[in-house]
């Protein structure tokens, strides 16, 4: 199963504002978030982690990027109430 196929197995509702904020100046380019993100929403670009522009269509709201970042360069809240992933078979 390709990672895109996994992403297709997630339903989403409504539109949310940003809920992951990067502090690029603090990023040390360790790649933790890139490796850990279960849906591959992060990439390394010029030695800095960069989140996909369309991360709101990929992210499954686990918060791993926030917790795996030792440099505190990632802020994570959640999508606005009533939006984001909807799991029917959790």
């Amino acid at each position: 199963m390709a990672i895109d196929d996994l992403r297709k197995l997630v339903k989403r509702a409504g539109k949310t504002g940003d809920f992951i904020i990067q502090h690029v100046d603090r990023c040390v380019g360790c790649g933790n978030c890139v490796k850990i993100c279960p849906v591959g929403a992060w990439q390394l670009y010029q030695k800095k982690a960069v989140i996909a522009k369309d991360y709101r269509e990929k992210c499954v709201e686990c918060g791993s990027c926030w917790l795996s970042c030792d440099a505190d360069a990632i802020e994570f809240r959640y999508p606005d109430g009533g939006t984001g992933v909807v799991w029917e078979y959790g």
Partner: protein
Amino acid sequence: MPEKVDVLVVGAGPGGSIAAKTAAEKGLKTIFFERGAQPGDKAASGCGLPPRMWREFDFMKDLDIPSYKIKYQALHLLDDTLGERFSMRWSPSDLGEYPEAREYFQVNVYRPGFDRFLAKLAVNAGAELRTSTLIENVLKDDAGKIIGVVTDKGEKIEGKVTIAADGATSKIACQAGLRKKWRPDEITLVVDCDFSAPEARINEIIGPEEYSNHVYVSPLYPATYVAMMPGGFHVGFGQWLDRYKSASALSPYEYLQNVIQSKPLQQFIQKLHATPREFHAHLLPWLSHVPENTFGDGILLVGDAAGFPCPLEAEGINYAMISGRFAAQTAAEAIAAGNTSATGLQPYEAKWQASTIGEEFTTPKEWVDLWAGIFFDPPQWNKLTPIANNLMFWASWSAPHIRNFKRELANYGENLPFLLEFAKTYLVPLMKKAGVPLGRTMLKVAWKWLKTKKKTSPTGVTGGMRK
């Protein structure tokens, strides 16, 4: 003027709903918040409900959602070709403390139905449920006491006590200053895929008397579960964040690929005509220490937010519900006494410590070391799978049995240092901490056996011996 109530509960998962239900039953004006459009929308982790929940919570007898009673558990050992080399299957033990414990392991249910069942109980008890509401922050007074919450719409709502049941990440616990975000060695990322399978097929191939939970271990991924659910099953695994970070570890996605490609899982999928239906990922606190700072000025933490999943298997739902009840009871007592500061809410800690939660945390480091060192350390299975596989070599028809028997024993002799080291590292510390008087007990049993030794043993084990 902000809205004012007695108790605010952040999160309508199992812990939050029980907290809200208990608070409302005590006559407290209670609001509980859910960021999903309805409870269960954000619950990623399907659950096995342990039989003791039916003894702990009277309302469980009314649970009427589809469920599977799990009557078998199985462990499958794979090698680095992802083929199965050894497996065992067992039913509930006669050692179970009560009849249901001897009948089944767990009742497996999908979370949306279960979470809605619990939330409805809270609403029926008089608590107000506000869905599609993300709690963005806490409100503090000048002295830093938590006096309420702020929603994502900017509304401020005041409560005498705030109960944070906002799950694994618990932003509320961090915002309240009770702790920093979990360290990567305190929390696991669980990746899980739900498969659907026609119920008729499940019952034709397996059937209700054989509903089962499986654990697959291999050198190529951390211990993976397959839990049968009504009309499907969950496949997933977890690993501590710090371990994903290590250079030798694969990414969660790569592990999942290995899991799905493994031969026994492919067989399981094909046998049941299963298809992947939903993908989940979520965090799960798994602490090797006793949870700290579970209360503060005006605030209590319950369930995953507090770090209560058990140190052996990270079982969380039951402990979330138990702690939710304690939190609401403590809040009611503190409000009645007119002291909702940390000193008024302190009895919460004594309550959970004296409960089964506290009992689970008597050996946290030893359990976590055991689990992390065996089931969550894939390379161990390069060694352990063949050792287990050799167990029945004496019965092989490949050569005269006595020759195979000797060969097997010689092999175990060679592996003895590894096995002893293994026991010394992972089992002895657990037994010591748990106060199992290992040496003395074994000596006593041996002494008794020597003293009562007769031609035929009392257990009759020599009954079938030829003259």
